């Protein structure tokens, strides 16, 4: 059974930190890079996230995720480097291309923020099981229905991807053309998507019935089969994170 997950099953200190603590780290580390727009500071935060990934033994797993954003990062460097409105100081020129100091500094800041955003998310998603994160969120007061939705998406998408393969094959064998000019390809879109939609709406109706008869809609207080795991240093780490956030906000206001 394939489920959508980036979780890497390893033994590390980070794997034993509570999911909600890691979630808090994601939020705090992203927030402070925007609260304090100083290159050195943002670099420091980014390196911290990198270090945590390394401690969690998942550093190499972050690379493909970072690669997804390479286009955005290149675009930031080029566009800001060339066209930033405050560009004045010429850093260097290659032929007709001129990079400006202001633009590149800004681009560096933006790039580091993006890198930190992805890496801090990486800490959460590479070292945390989905169901543990969701159950912890429900215990903290998130609606169990939203929790259900989050978990079921992760299981249903691989199922739907499997149906997609079947539908594509079936339509091709009926002579549908998937190559050719734009009009041909646009026309091919409908016979592919319509069966997917009908099939999933049909299943939705039935699954809703199955959920109803299993008490999905009762107002009773939910219990849990899985016991909460014991996590390490939850209070300490969370207090430190909150303190960091408050200090950076204070710094921003006072300076």
């Amino acid at each position, binding site marked *: *059974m394939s*489920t959508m997950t980036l979780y890497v099953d390893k033994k590390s200190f980070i794997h034993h930190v509570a999911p909600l603590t890691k979630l808090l780290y994601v939020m705090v580390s992203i927030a402070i890079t925007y609260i304090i727009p100083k290159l050195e500071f943002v670099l420091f935060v980014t390196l911290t996230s990198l270090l945590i990934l390394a401690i969690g033994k998942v550093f190499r797993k972050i690379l493909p995720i970072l690669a997804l954003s390479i286009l955005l990062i290149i675009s930031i460097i080029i566009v800001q480097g060339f066209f930033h409105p405050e560009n004045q100081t010429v850093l260097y020129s290659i032929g007709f291309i001129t990079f400006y100091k202001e633009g590149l500094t800004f681009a560096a800041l933006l790039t580091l923020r993006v890198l930190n955003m992805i890496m801090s998310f990486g800490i959460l998603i590479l070292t945390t099981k989905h*169901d543990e994160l969701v159950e912890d969120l429900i215990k903290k007061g998130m609606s*169990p229905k939203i929790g*259900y939705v989050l*978990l*079921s998406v992760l*299981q*249903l998408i691989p*199922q739907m991807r499997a149906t997609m393969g079947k539908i594509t094959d079936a339509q091709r064998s009926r002579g549908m053309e998937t190559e050719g000019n734009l009009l041909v390809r646009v026309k091919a879109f409908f016979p592919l998507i319509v069966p997917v939609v009908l099939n999933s709406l049909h*299943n939705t109706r*039935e*699954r*809703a*019935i*199955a*959920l*109803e*008869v*299993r*008490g*999905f*809609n*009762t*107002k*009773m*207080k*939910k*219990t*849990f*089969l*899985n*016991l909460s795991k014991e996590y390490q240093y939850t209070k300490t780490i969370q207090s430190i994170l909150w303190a960091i956030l408050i200090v950076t906000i204070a710094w921003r206001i006072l300076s």
Partner: protein
Amino acid sequence: MSIIQVEGLKYKYPDTDQLALDDISFEVKQGEFIGLIGRNTAGKSTLCFALSGLVPHFFNGGYGGKVFVNGLEVRQHEVGDIAAHVGLVFENPFSQMTASKYTVFEEIAFGLENMGVERNEMITRMDESLDLLDITSIKDKHPFDLSGGQMQRVAIASVIAMKPKILILDEPTSQLDPQGSEEVFKVVENLTKEGITIIMAEHKIDKLAEYADKVALIDHGKLIDFDTPAKVFSRDDLPDYGITAPTATRIGKALGIKDSKTDLFPVTIKAISREIGDKL
């Protein structure tokens, strides 16, 4: 007292004019096994929904008459509350998996978690259900990795763990291969021994004839007949309702062999063999 009481039940789906259930009345005693027969659009599924509260609460539409299950009037209670008294299992095993759990064991816990059953009690009940449905060996598998027959048994176990007095099975074997169907029928037989009242809509007439205490024949939303299998299956007009009588009944009719106890045609292979054996 009857565990199910239906009085003048009428129902129509939203945006339709025709009644899906038309003035249906009947009663079921605790522990009885009721077979529900009729053609595909006769209203069998709708009746199953009406007994579990999905009609009218889930589907809306027009509703009249009264349905009592284990003393609760369905119209006045939410589906979630009725779920503790009536379990429902239907055709498609795949869509009955919640798609939110990673093992069969967790899947079965879903309903109990929602009902707020205390954890130790939950585990006891789940172990019982696993045992009853003979699926203990697959309890750590992912629900989507199972065969259709196994998935359907997990669906039944999930519902049984909620300890309903009544179990409704709406064509539970129609999407299964012969082996899967056989697995399901076997566990249903186990359940009847537990004293659970069972309502089962099913096209496999021979199987129904074997287990049912009574058979309800439905057509165009009306209850045509509600009687013992022997009486219902002896009717000459069964083909008018899209029903073929059980093999034993047809053989009995062809050979003129009647069940000596009831003076009706036999409905099971066992009964007809006995009659033939007696004659020889």
